[in-house]
């Protein structure tokens, strides 16, 4: 018998499971295609203000100018410098998959060689003692036959000396 000092409330169980198919779009689509096909990380530049974007974007976010077309895209990296990072210790539900995150899970902001622009990605290293802003890292790609045309065609960035 339940205690009458604890009130019972009616709570409805609602499970929303709504699958989406998001269009990556022309520029993001080509960026992802190039990760898959050529194993290159592309950026592009605004002809007006000089700002680089990675992944390439069709319109400059700073000055709203049409950016450089595909034939002028520049491959940057795969090496770069770590600017910032975080290491997730507590598991959460991964929003794209609904599965629980395997921890520790470390994320870095990487300033890629070749253009003043950063990419966010996973880091191989998750020991916070060994992670320092300024350290050098390099993209590790999946073998070509396993690539799917998504951001995880790069497995992670590993530490290089």
């Amino acid at each position, binding site marked *: 018998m339940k205690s009458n000092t604890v009130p019972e409330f009616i709570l409805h169980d609602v499970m929303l499971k709504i699958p989406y198919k998001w269009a990556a779009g022309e520029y993001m689509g080509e960026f992802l295609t190039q990760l898959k096909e050529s194993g290159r990380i592309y950026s592009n530049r605004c002809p007006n203000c000089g700002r680089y974007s990675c992944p390439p974007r069709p319109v400059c976010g700073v000055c709203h100018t049409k950016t450089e077309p595909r034939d002028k895209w520049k491959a940057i990296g795969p090496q770069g410098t770590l600017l910032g990072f975080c290491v997730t210790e507590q598991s959460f539900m991964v929003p794209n998959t609904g599965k629980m995150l395997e921890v520790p899970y470390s994320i870095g*902001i990487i300033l890629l060689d070749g253009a003043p622009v950063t990419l966010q990605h996973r880091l191989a290293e998750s020991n916070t003692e060994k992670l320092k802003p300024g350290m050098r890292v390099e993209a590790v790609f999946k073998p070509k036959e396993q690539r799917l045309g998504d951001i995880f065609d790069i497995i992670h960035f590993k530490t290089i000396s």
Partner: protein
Amino acid sequence: MSQRVAIVGVGMTRHTSRRPDVNDGELINEAVTAALADAQLSIKDIDSVVIGNMDFFEGHYLSDAMMMDYTGARLKKGLKMNTGGTVGSMEVVSGFYNVASGICDTCLVIGWEKHDETAVTPAISTMGDASLDRPFVVGALTGLAIEGIEYMHRTGCQLEHAAMARAQSSQNAARNPHAHLRDKYTPEEVMNARMVQYPLNLLMVCPTSVGACVTILAGEKKAKKISKKPVWIKDHTTVHPEYTGNHYQGQFDLPGYPRRTSMMMAGSTILKRNHITQPMKEIQVFEMYDPCAFVQMSWLEDFGICGHAEGWKMMEKGMTALEGAFPVNPSGGVLCTNAIGDSGIMRVAEAALQIRGDAGEHQVTRDVRTALASGFGGAFWTDLLLLKKDLD
């Protein structure tokens, strides 16, 4: 037709982890009732209603229509906001436009969230681009954790300072009956909390709360007639940086040097436009949207309140404490109370209470004539409002 705008009423619920005893509407109605009582108005005196939350948290998107019985919005003007962390502050800005335009004389502004109804992390992650961002955005914390690392690296701030900041917030929240987490902590106790996302541990991040907050805005003539202590919205700005999948790209002033562009732009706009040259003297309190323990130090710098690397030193010296020279978040801030759709409006409401002298136990010791309130969204979207006791 345009007119100046004052806050003439404030109402908020208590904040807690769970409220299974009420639905959204009943929760909202508690704050609406409190705000109308505070303003000594009835719903008939209200011309428009602005309401906001973040749809994914409650799982329905017609809140403006569904909540009508509880908000009192039937047959009135109004609109709904759904802009993530900035919902509350954007709503006040929106209410300001309603009234300042002269189209309405009064506006009831409602922000709420009922975080006990779903898992916050997957819901909040819908803010991110699915191609590039969501695979890495682990809830709201990823960007803030990275920013903490970057701030420590750039300025010499230590993890212990974040713990001190959180301990200070806990002292303030303990004095605020509307705060959610009201336990007092020492910096050592904060340091020993379970790690969530390095460098942020469980006590260095904001909670998920249930609560609602309402402000009532009125035009100049009406405000002077109905309110003994109107708080004037002197100025405000809203700044969007470009949306970026990661939290640094697009924030470069110089190559390789990340900055929080929207904070800097918002701060400099408000300070310059109001000829404020000594912000710590000319502004007496700042209710800042502080989702993690680092930012109540780092964003002071970005808003232009203090110089580079001075934010953590101000906190260390006790200057940002409730009795300090420049109190920040005497309410305990978002670090102690975070029902997202009401967090931004709570900053404005708390700043207004400080100006009125009605903050009770967490009233700052300085005489408050001018206050700042900020709102923050996950994509570094910033709102900043300047409130005044007196009309110029």
